[in-house]
């Protein structure tokens, strides 16, 4: 009983920081509609800044003063980011801003590395709260008790701010209808900046407050990112009480999970989230998101046409060059080209879902990694030849996509995105923890192509044929009646259903097709690398694809492929530098700010301006 109570208290203490960070994310999303991937980075920044301030400021007053000051400092960093990076892209298509915030993650990672170095920092103990208290014989740190006592006050203060003050009224009004608030004479830019300050300050506070328990390290940003998304989604987007409830639920479950079911720890919160979303699709205390409520901002869309003769010619010429160059170039070119092709197919499959179907999946790595593991497991355990494994990889991944899609497609928008992420995490933890079969962290190694395909050049041609084939198949589907139906379901599900289109069935088939193509890419990846590790199923994998699709251009058919090629080449070039994340992050931000329609859209606009392409009509 004593242990039980002690663990309950640990869970409640952990919930404190989690709630602060998650409520900041929830506020920012509620008002600005930006999915702030960089929120974990502000949390990490809070830990580092807090650490430095605590070194400088002495005593108990210094400790708590440092925490508050950290909130202000991180909030101000948030303001700088908002003004420099996000303001230029508010009018870009929905969710595009998350690409910019992804760039911010990379920049902050390297800046933290530059300033604080690579070693983990041990947080200072809170003055006066260093010892433990024995509760029913079990030791409970005093600091935990302090956190348990403080968190409700933070929550109350936040509630008071939102529910009782004029600023809070504006924030709530903007959460419901930001256009109306703008029309009523509120300066939206400063409202957004203010909310960003508050949100980031909360993340900073969370980072500083957990220092005595966890310290500061460079992996904190991604480690907490998944948890805070889960908390916000379980609680219901935009609901503060919901966020508190969910933070407590997740933290307490985690502590109990560690004790009673250790193998569940990596996946427990995702299982809880999946269960909650299946019963309450909008979170515990969330309300239904009315589709189309926030409207399409920016330019109207252009109809998609099949490529004309001239474009076909250019693409054919490009393919010919691609086929010939590795013959003449050094062999690392063939290896690089293989990597790029595989990544392009992966990105194109996500683009099919996201661009045509409007289905934003945060967990597309499930199918890339899924296909990779299907192939690797077949080879490792059944001695399957590569030819068969490459056929079964897309089939297995497609089957997986059918199962996951069937569950996820009941939800829409951010909730759909989060549920796909949950399933990807589920698979990741399965691969990670089912050591006997998947090799766990050590992965599956020594999976090479048969003799005829061992040369880099031959494998490159095999990849070329399969990837280009896959990409062309996706393109064909986009122009076929099926692709039109998929777009119809995205543009207006109401009209589509009213004209006999079973929109969910269409989306389901598209989900399966995209999953199968990602699986093919994953299968090829295994044989290209000779191995597979759980990180092919990780969040970062999913995010890579997501970033690439947005960078390339969601609303252009070739966006996925072009983005994939550019991103993978840029990564290959930049990773040779010490601070490559900084360079890549700044590159991403630059593309986002300069070409909000993505690379393809930006190039097209440029082409129209200098007269190479015929502009389409624009009236509105």
């Amino acid at each position, binding site marked *: 009983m004593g242990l039980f109570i002690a663990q309950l208290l640990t869970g409640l203490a952990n919930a404190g920081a989690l709630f602060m960070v998650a409520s900041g994310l929830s506020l920012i999303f509620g008002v600005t509609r930006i999915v702030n991937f960089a929120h974990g980075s502000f949390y990490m920044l809070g830990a580092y800044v807090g650490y430095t301030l605590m070194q400088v400021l002495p005593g108990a007053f210094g400790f708590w003063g440092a925490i508050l000051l950290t909130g202000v400092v991180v909030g101000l960093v948030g303001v700088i980011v908002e003004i420099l990076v996000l303001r230029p892209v508010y009018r870009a298509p929905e969710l595009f801003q998350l690409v910019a915030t992804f760039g911010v993650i990379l920049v902050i990672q390297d800046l933290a590395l530059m300033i604080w170095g690579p070693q983990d920092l041990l947080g200072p103990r809170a003055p006066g709260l260093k010892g433990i208290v024995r509760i029913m014989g079990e030791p409970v740190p005093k600091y935990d008790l302090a956190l348990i006592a403080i968190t409700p006050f933070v929550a109350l203060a936040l509630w008071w701010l939102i529910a009782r003050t004029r600023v809070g009224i504006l924030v709530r009004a903007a959460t419901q209808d930001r256009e109306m608030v703008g029309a009523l004479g509120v300066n939206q830019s400063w409202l957004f900046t203010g909310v960003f300050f508050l949100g980031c300050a909360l993340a900073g506070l969370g980072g500083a407050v957990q220092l005595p328990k966890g310290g500061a390290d460079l992996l904190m940003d991604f480690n907490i990112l998944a948890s805070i998304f889960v908390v916000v989604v379980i609680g219901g987007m935009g609901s503060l009480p919901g966020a508190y409830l969910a933070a407590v639920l997740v933290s307490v479950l985690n502590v109990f999970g560690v004790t009673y079911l250790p193998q569940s720890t990596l996946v427990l919160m995702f299982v809880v989230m999946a269960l909650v979303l299946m019963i309450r699709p909008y979170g515990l205390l969330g309300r239904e998101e009315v589709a189309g409520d926030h409207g399409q901002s920016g330019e109207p869309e252009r109809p998609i046409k099949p490529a004309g003769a001239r474009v076909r010619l250019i693409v054919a010429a490009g393919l010919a060059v691609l086929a010939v160059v590795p013959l003449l170039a050094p062999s690392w070119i063939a290896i690089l080209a293989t990597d790029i092709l595989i990544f392009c197919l992966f990105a194109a499959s996500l683009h099919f879902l996201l661009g045509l179907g409007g289905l934003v999946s945060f967990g597309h790595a499930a199918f890339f990694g899924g296909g990779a593991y299907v192939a690797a497991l077949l080879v490792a355990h059944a001695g399957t030849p590569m030819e068969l494994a490459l056929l079964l990889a897309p089939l297995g991944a497609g089957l997986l996509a059918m199962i996951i899609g069937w569950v996820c497609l009941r939800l829409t928008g951010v909730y759909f995105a989060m549920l796909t992420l949950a399933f990807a995490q589920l698979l990741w933890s399965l691969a990670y923890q089912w050591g006997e079969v998947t090799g766990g962290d050590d992965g599956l190694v020594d999976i090479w192509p048969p003799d005829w395909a061992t040369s880099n050049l031959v494998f490159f041609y095999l990849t070329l044929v399969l990837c280009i084939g896959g990409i062309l198949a996706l393109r064909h589907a986009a122009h*076929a009646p099926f692709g039109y139906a998929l777009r119809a379901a995205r543009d207006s599900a109401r009209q589509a259903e*009213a004209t006999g289109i079973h929109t969910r069935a269409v989306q389901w088939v598209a989900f399966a097709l995209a999953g199968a193509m990602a699986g093919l890419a994953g299968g090829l990846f295994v044989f290209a690398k000779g191995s597979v590790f759980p990180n092919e199923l990780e969040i970062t994998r999913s995010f890579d694809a997501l970033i690439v699709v947005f960078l390339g251009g969601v609303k252009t058919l070739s966006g996925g492929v072009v983005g994939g090629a550019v991103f993978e080449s840029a990564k290959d070039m930049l990773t040779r530098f010490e601070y490559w994340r900084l360079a890549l992050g700044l590159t991403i931000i630059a593309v986002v700010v300069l070409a909000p329609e993505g690379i393809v859209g930006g190039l097209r606009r440029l082409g129209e301006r200098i007269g190479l392409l015929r502009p389409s009509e624009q009236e509105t």
Partner: protein
Amino acid sequence: MSTVLSVRGLSKSFGGIRAVDDVSFDLAQGELLALIGPNGAGKSTCFNMMTGHLKPDGGTVSLNGTPITGLKPRRIWRLGVGRTFQITATYASMTVVENVQMALISHHRRVFALRPYAHRLYRDEALELLDLVGMAAQADRACAVLAYGDLKRLELAIALAHAPGLLLMDEPTAGMAPGERAALMQLVADIVAQRQLSVLFTEHDMDTVFAHAHRVMVLNRGRLIAKGPVAHIRADPEVQQVYLGGGTLFNALDTSTDA
């Protein structure tokens, strides 16, 4: 004339409010029937129960004698019921003609087909429909740049793609200029006569209703308080009372149309 749509005892409550209360009526083939009533009378709720967007608490809806109560919207459409929306719903990323082609693809049950390219499928058929609603000249424009009245006409073409026997139109002329309204309703009336369609529409504009409807039903607080030919409705004192708060306007209207 045979009965196309038959509604019996339709009811729906939201919380404690009876939004639609025991509504019954028949719609004959070739008839243009208007459903009118003040804001909040329950017109849209009534409509949404007939199209399958809302499940009624009680009552039945049958189409040519077959019960369709509680069916999904796409099933009801398959049975030959077309509809247009109060707030237009079109596919913004497609051209005007592709919007109609999409409906035709569904009509021919080729939604899951992988060939040929969709922009070639049923293009001529779609152009004919666009011609019918006077939109042929704008066929290849992007849907996203159309004027509102044109979107309404496009929606009509989409609804006609399935060759429906019954057309449900929720405020077909909302947001249009007076001249456009008359033109659109005249178009609908012509199509009804030409194709022996039946139409049920809700409408706020009395000129439009009295000029084109064959019969009118008046809904107030969820109950049908009157139904009958136009002249009969105009003369009904209860309708005058609840709908316009007095008789003067109706009389004024009378003299203006007679003159």
